[in-house]
């Protein structure tokens, strides 16, 4: 016992390290609230004069910086992608684990083999296929292909497998078909996994960079990360404006994280637990 370091020493060390992770985020917020001259000089950490001028410039200039459109695009694309992924994955996982568990197992093996291929191999042919479909420069190009993601199918299959057979048998006696069992037994049973999958998908889509960069063309159709990247090159040293835009594009996810922290942590840990 006496050779153990005091817990508070450990906590100080951990706290300092965590501070290093947090500090850059604080700078992001603080710089966005400083007047231009103070940003360039940067003699004080806190602003001498707090100002919202960068945010005013950001939102009063929709012709040049359509950040409102980018916010809307990001939100709608993330929302529809999430709904589609959760729906397609849960249906497929239910079929694999409950309706046809015998050949479902073989289907999973096939999927696992396919998962070895990373997305980068698909980028060029995907571009050409979306071009042939006439979907380039449209949100469809980002939303619909997401339904092919196998991660959710794997994750939910594990959950559906743990449904007790008696529960489904009882539902059958009540006259439930496959659809009824899925809605009344399957989905409620996997509720936490569905929420986790939804949040992970939402965050991943919100922050996706390569997809919108390659598949979208018009500035007004951009999502936040790509729009922001575009206008950082034209406003290279206007850090006040750039940081205000960064805060606007990060805040929604930070809020989502704070609200759904427990589910997100559980969801991320799923990826770490291999069967």
């Amino acid at each position: 016992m006496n050779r153990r370091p005091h817990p508070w020493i450990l906590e100080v060390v951990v706290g300092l390290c965590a501070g290093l992770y947090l500090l850059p985020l604080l700078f992001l917020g603080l710089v966005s609230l400083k007047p231009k001259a103070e940003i360039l000089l940067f003699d004080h950490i806190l602003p001498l004069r707090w100002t919202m001028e960068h945010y005013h410039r950001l939102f009063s200039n929709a012709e040049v910086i359509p950040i409102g459109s980018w916010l809307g695009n990001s939100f709608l694309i993330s929302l529809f992608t999430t709904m589609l992924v959760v729906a397609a994955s849960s249906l497929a996982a239910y079929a694999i684990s409950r309706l046809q568990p015998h050949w479902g197992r073989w289907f999973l093996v096939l999927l696992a083999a396919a998962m070895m291929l990373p997305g980068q191999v698909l980028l060029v042919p995907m571009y050409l296929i979306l071009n042939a479909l006439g979907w380039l420069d449209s949100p469809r190009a980002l939303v619909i292909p997401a339904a092919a993601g196998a991660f959710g199918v794997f994750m939910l299959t594990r959950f559906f497998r743990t449904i007790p057979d008696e529960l489904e048998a009882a539902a059958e006696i009540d006259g439930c078909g496959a659809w009824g069992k899925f809605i009344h037994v399957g989905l409620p049973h996997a509720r936490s996994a569905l929420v986790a999958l939804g949040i992970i998908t939402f965050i991943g889509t919100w922050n996706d960079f390569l997809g919108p960069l390659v598949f979208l063309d018009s500035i007004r159709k951009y999502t936040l990360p790509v729009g922001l990247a575009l206008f950082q090159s034209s406003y290279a040293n206007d850090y006040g404006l750039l940081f205000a835009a960064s805060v606007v594009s990060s805040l929604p996810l930070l809020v989502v994280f704070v609200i759904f922290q427990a589910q997100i942590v559980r969801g991320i840990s799923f990826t770490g637990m291999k069967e």
Partner: protein
Amino acid sequence: MNRQAGSPGAAVLFLLPFAAAFLVFFVGPTFFGLGMSFFDWEMLSGLPPRWVGGGNYLEALQDARFHRSLLVTGLFVFITVPLNLFASLGLAAGVSALPKRQGVYRSLIYLPVLLNITVASLLWRWFYNTKFGLFNKLLQPWGLELPWLTDPALALPSISLMTVWWTSGVSFLILLTAFQQVSPSLYEAAEIDGATGWQKFRFVSLPQIMPVVGFCLLLEVLSSFKVFGQPFLMTGGGPEGATRVAMQYIYETGFSFFRMGYASALSWISFLLIFCVTLLHRIGSGKGRAGK
């Protein structure tokens, strides 16, 4: 019994949305891309694709710029992955040993992961700015002024450092969960034997979580190989191509020069390289298990 016999129709219907998307947007592009890599297809020329057999692969073998980009990618993986693993393992061990407030630290360390790549790159470009960046401001009292992103030798390590800050929260979270799942009775047994904190970490926790560490290692190697956004946004691949990674070279070949066949061949080559690494990891972890 009748449940399994009676529902093949329903199963097909349930599987349909995912399977259709999987066929069109995964299986299709995979084979399309593989086939395309044997054609010379310059989209801007307006000419139809022309069969060149292994021509694109031969060209890649002699393409010095591609080799350089592979080398840069390898170097990035080599610098980033150990740093990332070290930081996340150390923090996970530290936080899991705290008597309370584990959740607070867990969130703080995970927060940067939530930023999108543009914001993270923008922020660190400001930190790294030679003239008025924060880092050189901090170094000023010592008369130092480092060319963080403008020196060919320093640019890649600078991007690695930013990447560790931005991404280590993922491994940290996975490892923390693993630490928290180590049975307390094991620690109690070690304490009765008079183990110190370090000994408990070395001989109790570490062996227990080793498989998870291996998993994080693989995860980080794979994602570092795919690096694109950080150098693309912070240096544009410069200075003098010192940070032009394979993914950026493929992106430029495909979407600046529209050489679709060649870009496909390049993606397949880099995929095969990653695949070999995964295979090595498989063999390595298999051996580790056999040795236990």
